[in-house]
């Protein structure tokens, strides 16, 4: 049985045009949403309970997952580096290679992708459900601004907590690399950390934290944007959740490249 009719060829251009217009309307709505959220920051800081709750939910509760994933990211990096370098470069450089790769790339990007899977989806599903069950409308009728009450705490919690998560992830990933290097590749502790120190530059941490801040905003904003404009019941909530995580993942990779081009 054919459930959905494809648009007839004669209407394909019209269909494409509609999609392009919808895309630009979406961009406009996103910009307005960001400006509205930013304008609520002073009020949010005056009553910080909402923000602290979200920092706990988005940040602290993501910590076990981030630590677990980072430990293995560092470990697999060390194993791969050891395998690749064994015939071409001294293994004493493993620390340097892992330190540089984790601080500049793996720490921020992998943490952001993991947190996107957990946080963007949860925000989109929660706000989407609230939208389709009229809870956001109810909030409006009670003279409570949903941008201040729902969107702003989630956005700023993402923005403030992602740098912390990335910092923890970076340290844990280097530690994971050290464990494999020391116990399986037989590199001494001093050699490994001297390698890390050898190529370390403070500017790398600036890049690491800049990426974290921007990725934090992307992760939270994708969830908020798609959750907030959900329509169409349970199917709509599912679609919003998919859109949120896919958009977050794509934007993280795009901005990762842009930041690298601008800052390196």
């Amino acid at each position: 049985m054919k459930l959905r009719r494809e648009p007839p060829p004669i209407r394909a251009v019209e269909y494409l045009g509609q999609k392009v217009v919808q895309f630009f309307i979406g961009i406009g709505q996103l910009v307005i949403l960001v400006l509205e959220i930013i304008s609520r920051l002073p009020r949010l800081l005056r009553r910080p309970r909402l923000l602290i709750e979200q920092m706990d939910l988005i940040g602290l509760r993501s910590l076990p997952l981030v630590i677990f994933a980072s430990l293995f990211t560092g470990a697999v990096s060390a194993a791969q580096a050891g395998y690749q370098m064994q015939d071409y470069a001294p293994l004493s450089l493993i620390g340097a290679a892992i330190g540089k790769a984790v601080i500049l790339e793996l720490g921020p990007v992998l943490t952001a992708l993991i947190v996107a899977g957990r946080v963007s989806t949860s925000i989109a599903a929660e706000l989407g459900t609230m939208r389709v069950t009229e809870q956001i409308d109810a909030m409006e009728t009670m003279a409570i601004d949903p941008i201040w009450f729902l969107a702003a705490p989630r956005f700023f919690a993402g923005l403030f907590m992602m740098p912390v998560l990335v910092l923890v992830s970076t340290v844990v990933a280097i530690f994971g690399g050290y464990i494999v290097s020391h116990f399986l590749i037989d590199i001494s502790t001093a050699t490994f950390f001297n390698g890390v120190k050898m190529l370390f530059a403070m500017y790398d941490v600036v890049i690491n934290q800049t990426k974290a801040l921007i990725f934090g905003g992307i992760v939270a904003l994708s969830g908020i944007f798609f959750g907030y404009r959900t329509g169409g019941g349970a199917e709509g909530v599912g679609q919003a959740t998919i859109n949120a995580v896919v958009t977050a993942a794509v934007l993280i990779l795009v901005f990762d490249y842009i930041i690298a081009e601008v800052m390196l």
Partner: protein
Amino acid sequence: MTNGAGMSVPEGRGCNISIEGLRKNLGGRPVLRDVNLNIPPGETIGIVGRSGCGKSVLLKHVIGLMWPDDGRVLIDGQDLGLMSQEELYRTRQRFGMLFQSSALFDSMSVAENVALSLVHNTELSASEVDSKVAECLGTVGLHGQEERMPSELSGGMKKRVGLARAVAMDPEIMLFDEPTTGLDPIMSAVIDEVISELVERLKTTAVVVTHDMRTVNSICHRVAFLHRGVIFAEGTPSEIMNSEDEVVAQFIAGRADGPIRPRL
């Protein structure tokens, strides 16, 4: 004081609601074509009509959850569409609304649902909020249910919590969207009684959207029949019930055959 149907209504502390030339298209289809309605302070008016005729859309315009394509809604002479966001939220503090789905915040307990507006819109102390919540829940017969979550409540209990939440701010205008839909006849009668008592005690202006003629008979001073995007007929409940107009009579009698041809 008399209403639009020349019937006397109690002197209320409620507001005057005036709807002038309201038009609204949804998905390219005209839902409201030219709605004109004046609701004097203290009157309880029932908006009746077939499913999908635009009753809930009309109600959402009255509280500014939707905006007209043309026409205006005036609350005590103030045009909702010309208000700043701050003025709109201040005006909404004078409203209480019961949603068809109850729209309770499912992450909050019963007490938190009822207290939310009080906590964010008033300067009441925590103990004053608690006692107000207990008073509101007592009014709807739910004393002692403060700690329960919405998921643990029956449909009738959810409606009553929704009512308690709607009256928490002692509103001057109350809006009820299908207050008895989905409830058994006994629970419907209970909800009708509670609404009647609340409206009388608070002396509010009330708008009840329903297609339940029993609800209309028991709580409304006046009825407006919405059909094809206009107020097709209005009068007292008995005038509407005994109308000789074929369209109104078919709706009241609930007959499939007649001038209204339901699309299947």
